[in-house]
């Protein structure tokens, strides 16, 4: 203690984070333990959970690595991940067990929530669907209850999502049926939300502003309105109001943390305001989002994130690889072995690699942010052409603070195991005491041992 020159009081405030600390301090080396893997008080760096999602699947023949186990080599479509390969495990041969009621819809809901989709097909109108259960990012956010400024962060890259078939295809992150967390597609808007007003850069004193307290008083009145209203509503309206109340609570927490800012981890710094790329400039948008995400995690603004790189059945036009036709149509109609579809999968992995690379180059103690992440990357179908759910393309990235296998492996299931096993493995890697995951056919109480450290 005395060796560090910091008082015990400072230490406690630093380690306890949020509510007690009145002044933001940069993390000093003195505040880390001797291994640099945790704060000196023994509190480990926070674990973060993320999803990286794209629409329309992959070309399995060029996606799955030829070798299994620890000695796997990058396949053609995974080749862009070479700089972060040690942080990536490939899971293949698994299957979504909730049934393929509807192409893309069932895969999207199945891989993200381990449950079946809820069809919304009254007849005589365009069909739609939504989730029946929360997506896994929200399961994690609820269980972690981290009280970070943002409960979770939803980012989108391509805006060419399917808007007419309900929330399943339009959004990734779900709290429940017809209750989604819409992604933000504008890097500038993300910057404003994360690092604009309300963000205290490390080393600076938080703003003391009586208006903040009054904003909370306003929300208190809004909550009283909601509580009075709740008594009058029927069951389903009441449930929808509950979400509004949850959202109000999240907003109160956010405002509270402006004044009582947690001491940010060591790599936190405020980025400059990014340029706003033109819509559908996929590389520019994606790379800007990657930078913002890395710093938002480094600054502990959130511990849960999801990136909807492109939507389920997405109509993204990948001019970056010379595509002249939108992705979904190509997966169905490109002849032969679909070289453009293959090039698109490869491009998406290149952008995923940028996300992972940014997390890896963002230091945290003696390691980096990616060391403390658990990331699920997958799609809404295994191959777009037949809308299949077999041999599902799944990547697991990050070390989850040492809980996940490093360097990564290729685990190939020979028995068409349930994809929910991967999700349960990730929950446990996040130290969430879950013994099962999924619903009905998607339910499992088993994990994938090969993925665990």
């Amino acid at each position, binding site marked *: 203690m005395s060796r560090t020159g910091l008082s015990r009081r400072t230490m406690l405030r630093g380690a306890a984070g949020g509510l007690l600390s009145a002044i933001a301090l940069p993390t000093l080396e003195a505040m880390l333990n001797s291994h640099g893997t945790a704060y000196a008080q023994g509190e480990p760096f926070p674990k973060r959970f993320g999803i990286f999602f794209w629409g329309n699947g992959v070309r399995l023949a060029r996606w799955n690595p030829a070798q299994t186990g620890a000695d796997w080599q990058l396949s053609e479509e995974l080749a862009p991940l070479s700089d972060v390969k040690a942080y990536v495990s490939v899971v293949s041969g698994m299957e979504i067990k909730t049934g393929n009621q509807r192409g893309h819809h069932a895969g999207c809901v199945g891989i993200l929530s381990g449950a079946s989709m809820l069809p919304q097909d009254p007849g005589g109108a365009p069909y739609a669907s939504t989730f029946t259960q929360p997506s896994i990012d929200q399961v994690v956010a609820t269980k972690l209850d981290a009280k970070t400024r943002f409960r979770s962060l939803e980012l989108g890259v391509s805006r060419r999502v399917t808007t007419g078939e309900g929330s399943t295809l339009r959004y990734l992150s779900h709290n429940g049926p017809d*209750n989604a967390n*819409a992604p933000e597609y504008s890097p500038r808007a993300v910057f404003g939300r994360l690092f604009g007003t309300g963000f205290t850069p490390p080393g600076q004193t938080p703003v003391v502003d009586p208006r903040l307290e009054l*904003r909370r008083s306003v929300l208190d009145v809004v909550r009283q309105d909601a509580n009075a209203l709740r008594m009058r509503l029927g069951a389903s309206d009441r449930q929808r109001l509950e979400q509004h109340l949850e959202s109000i609570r999240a907003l109160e927490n956010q405002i509270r943390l402006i004044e009582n800012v947690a001491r940010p981890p060591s790599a936190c710094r405020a980025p400059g305001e990014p340029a706003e790329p033109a819509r*559908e400039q996929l590389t520019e948008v994606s790379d800007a989002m990657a930078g913002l995400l890395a710093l938002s995690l480094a600054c502990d603004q959130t511990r849960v994130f999801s990136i909807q790189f492109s939507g389920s059945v997405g109509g993204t036009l990948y001019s970056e690889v010379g595509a002249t036709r939108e992705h979904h149509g190509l997966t169905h109609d490109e002849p032969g072995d679909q070289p453009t579809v293959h090039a698109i999968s490869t491009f998406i992995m290149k952008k995923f690699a940028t996300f992972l690379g940014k997390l890896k180059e963002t230091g945290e103690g003696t390691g980096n942010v990616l060391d403390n992440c658990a990331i699920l990357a997958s799609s809404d179908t295994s191959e777009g052409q037949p809308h299949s759910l077999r041999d599902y393309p799944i990547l697991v990235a990050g070390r989850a603070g040492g809980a996940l296998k490093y360097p990564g492996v290729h685990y190939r299931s020979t028995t068409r195991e349930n994809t929910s096993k991967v999700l349960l493995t990730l929950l446990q890697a996040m130290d969430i005491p879950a013994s099962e995951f999924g619903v009905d056919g998607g339910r499992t109480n088993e994990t994938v041992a090969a993925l665990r450290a």
Partner: protein
Amino acid sequence: MRIRARLAMVCSVVLATIGCEGNIESDRTGPGALDPETGLPVDPETGRPVDPETGEPLPPFSAAPGAMRRLSATQFQNAVRDLFENVRVTTALEPDAAVNGFIEIGVARGTISPAAAEKFEKAAYEIAGQVVAADRRAKFVGCTPAASVDTTCTRAYVERVGRRAFRRPLSSDEVGRYVGLAETAARRLNDFYAGIEFVTAGLLQSPNFAFRVEVGEPDPGNAGRLRYTSIEMATRLSFLIWNSIPDDALLRAGEAGELVAEQGLTTQIERLVSDARARTAMNNFHFERFNLEALDTLNKDRARFAAMTDTLGAAMREDVLRTADYIVFEQGGDYRDLFDTPVTFSNAELAGLYGVAKPASGTALTLLPAGGPRLGLLGKAGFLAMNAHSRETSPTLRGKFVRERLLCESIPAPPPEVVTIVPEPNPNAPTMRERLAVHRQEASCARCHGAMDPIGLSFENFDAIGSFRENDNGHALDLTGEIDGTTFDGPRELAALLRNRASANECAVRQLYRYAVGHVESAGEEVVIKSLSQRFSAGGYRLKNLIREVVVSDGFRFMKKESP
């Protein structure tokens, strides 16, 4: 219960109109056998209304469950416009998601996510700040405070603005809560207007503002169901006809209990429909009905289509909306004209695409040449471009739009695990028509594609952005099509078929009804749809009249009683 005096007058017209189309066997129902309640023919044995087309008995009306609707982003903007003159919201609210074709159905299911609540809060303070701006506060507050805490003045503001925002008088608890909030802020910041600012931000974040709360009351005429209360009806009316909150006069009518009776409703409907806001609101209906959101993200291959620009999608949208507005409000015309009108509203770039004279400036009414290949809604670039790929046309998507949006038919999702590849143009299949033949080779595909592709193929002389083309890939075009066994040649004949098709006109009714009630009609509401359709055709297909008929219909006024 509705007794309609004028019903007797229109009965014979109804039968004549439908009779011309051969949909009623008059010897079965007889010209006198009409149900006075619905205007529908009745089964002579049971006396129950029957479907005029099939003669099948219709289940008796049963009210649908209520569901509160969240204000859409557009409605939030409109409400602010109506609450505070010239106050602007620049905060981007969360976009709304359509379900079953309508945002109005989506918002009856959706809620407010954490990110959406953040955006609401940001917008609320943006608005509140403008309300108390030094040069505007006097107008908005309406009283001059005697001190930084002036309960009388605060209370007057809370009661007045709160009533408009919540679309009902505030309870004494609510008034106390908001006045207390204002005074806390005023004391803390030693500024009366700070109190007004925070209280305004509070009202705009309350679920009483953000949700259209409807709980109903017992229906004195039928113990088995609820009716929307008079004050709830005020909000139902204003959101349907203005897409915004009620004005003071409508709230007064609601408070006075006038809106549970047909006469009170009719008086207000007339007033609301003749207000300019009704036109903007019907634009919103058409925006949703025709899925025009898709025009915001058109993704066309610019190398192939030099005419495609960042602004063309918006011009296409304006063309569709203003054409519908022109028919419904300017002309007060026959809604079926939408199928075959020569009217377009074009700016310079759209006029270029249509090959018509460019307007001197802005967007102007421009007529398509008579007898040309392009006419009506389905000749508009909006429809043609939205339902096409980035480079190629999609007869499937175009046919799907006709089936789903114009005929209210369901096209199921393609079955999983079936692979069909529409081949690239080749010597054996040089045109889209020949390439799409693969859809008919696989039985599981043919069932649905047979309903879509033969309609869509008649639009093949319009490319993926809706420009006219003489040929496909250098090959002459065959524009023949088929719809449910009736063949036709080209979009002009299809427009005539649709115009005269009972299900197309009934679909317009269904769509307006769904939009009005926020759900897809259940079997127990089918009798309302049939009845409205009868009145729609009998009255010459006037959409403004249909709005009135929807509002006074049982489906709009009654709610299912939920078991506790």
